């Protein structure tokens, strides 16, 4: 094991930023919620989630929170995901596929431009954890 220098310490910190952010709810660019109710899972939400995880890892994105939630109530348009850019209203995407969600990640999350063709709408009903 090489002996560390002060720079190495910094590097380790950079590398583990994603964990830090996730656990401490620190500064993040966006939060992507994949709706994973029974309906969502049945329509392939797991693929969406896996694709997202893979992509985030591949691109080494450290400032995006990925989470899931229950059924969003629009079972017919599953799989769905909500992208919530920091300080902006959430955007719901519907009828997703792995390809589509990658595009959303690319254009919306990283590029800042809403992919309107997949979007259901902007805004959300008041979420209640119950």
């Amino acid at each position, binding site marked *: 094991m*090489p002996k560390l220098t002060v720079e190495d310490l910094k590097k380790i910190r950079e590398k583990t930023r994603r964990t830090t952010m996730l656990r401490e709810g620190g500064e993040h660019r966006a939060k992507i919620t994949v709706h994973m*109710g029974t309906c969502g*899972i049945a329509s392939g939400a797991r693929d969406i989630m896996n694709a997202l995880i893979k992509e985030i890892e591949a691109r080494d994105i450290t400032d995006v929170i990925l989470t899931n939630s229950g*059924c969003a109530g629009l079972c017919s348009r599953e799989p769905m995901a909500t992208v919530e850019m920091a300080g902006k209203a959430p955007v719901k995407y519907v009828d997703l596929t792995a390809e589509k969600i990658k595009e959303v990640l690319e254009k919306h999350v990283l590029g800042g431009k809403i992919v309107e063709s997949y979007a259901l709408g902007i805004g959300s009903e008041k979420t209640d954890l119950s």
Partner: protein
Amino acid sequence: MEEKEKAYRLHLMVCAGTGCVSNHAFEIKGALEKEIKKQSLENEVLVVTTGCNGFCERGPLLVVQPGNIFYQQLTEKDIPHLVEEHFLKGRPVQKLMYTPPKEKTPIPVLSDIDFFKGQVLIALRNRGLIDPEKIEEYIARDGYTAMAKALNEMTPEGIIEEIKKSGLRGRGGAGFPTGVKWEYVRNAPSTNGGVKYLVCNGDEGDPGAFMDRSILEADPHSVIEGMVIGAKAIGASEGFVYVRNEYPLALSRLNLALKQAREYGLLGKDILGSGFNFDIKVHRGAGAFVCGEETALLHSLEGRLGEPRPRPPYPAEKGLRDQPTCINNVETWANVPVIISRGANWYSSIGTKTSKGTKVFSLVGKINNTGLVEVPMGISLKEIIYNIGGGIPEGKEFKAVQTGGPSGGCIPKEKIDLPIDFESLTEAGSMMGSGGMVVMDEDTCMVDVARYFLSFTQDESCGKCTPCREGTKAMLSILTRITEGKGTEGDLVLLRDLAESIKDSALCGLGNTAPNPVLTTMQYFMEEYETHIKDKKCPARVCRQLNTYIVDENTCVKDGRGCDLCKRNCATDAILGEKGKAHRVVQEKCIKCGVCYDVCNFNAVKIE
């Protein structure tokens, strides 16, 4: 180290402090992992073990990040449901969440819970957030930056100045200013070519205190980092952590942390390229309370009998192997890195005029939220007990709180607004001690409390000096006499004389403080003593020898229909009566064991 960090959407922070572990936290963890695998979530959800979360009352605990969702009192049975509902389907499970007493709605988010709300985390800054067995996670939370700063950018004098300015005082009990101690050690001449030692006192002997254990379990690197900074300040190249062997988890995590730190070059030769050398050895203590006393600890560390020696010379002058030695408590060391990285000014902005920063207390006894809390100095007892602690269970009335471990004093409810700092506690006849806080309700007999603590100190007295060895024995026998109804009024005079004399003339801190429970209870609850002696009654009905057990014949017949249970359980045939008829106690035969009272299902047995 992996090249790229794996991405997970959920981190499940399983509390693996000793409290939760003994509540089967590891089984919970196993069940979680199994279930996650079953649901094929292993690439999305990560299970992390953390150190003690603090809310031990409610263990085993699980915090889900992101979201800070707090699950408590988990059982293995709950896991499949939890995994499916929350982690797979995203629906947090309400019934596993915390509901405050007297309320009905559960609080899902940890930071919204009263217990956590009032706390300010400095020493416990990483609790529940990192896996203590992974040094990377500590580094990720800015770990070892303070050390880097101290080693590369600061002079020893600068470090000492910073610590002095911060107002940090020893968290082991006496509250000696840490910076001043460091300065003494730095300036003390060493007879052995400049060798000085650094010791971390982890011999947490108080039966009700577990903050040192918790820190070592949850965040061992913070102690290591603090010690390296201290070593640089005083010029030591060798450090010791004295941990009692009753803390196996703390020991194994500490040893692992030391190994990792050494591998990373954060300990050993030329740390971070600064040219500074320092290493730490772990010494296991055999669990004698007196070894928490610094001179006794040093004796034990040298392999000798753990008994204190007179001071001066203080260890700062002549400590381990007769060389200047700096001894600080685990909590003190854990505070050091934060002060260095965030600055003395920030630290000294927390707390009161004389007591800066925060203090960790272990809140135990008759209180709803048992656990470990870190609060800013100056917070009132009331806030701790009612806001953080959630008050007294079963709606009973608060009577007193005993602070500072077995040799601290009892503070009565009249003083509940007392701000917690070193001076106020001492003034009230108690002390900060290591931070034990035992809450007592109306059902507590203060004479019995004094007797209980005395029996502890008597057992733990090393026996070296007469006042402590013989005095605690004498005081205990008087107190026992009183609780058995054999006390006389002369006993109270002798008891006070003894207590004062022992406090005055004992050799070490153990003896000096051992009379505190007696003195404070005599000061605040004298009438209880008098009732015990004059009326031969225990108002709290704790001292059984003073109780008179009688059967309320009405209740016995009406509610219990003369169930005969008491008679059958009475060891001395002191209860007369037949099934279906009223029973009564023959007082001459009664040995006051209280079994009838305990077994009666109809509250027909009364105490007079």
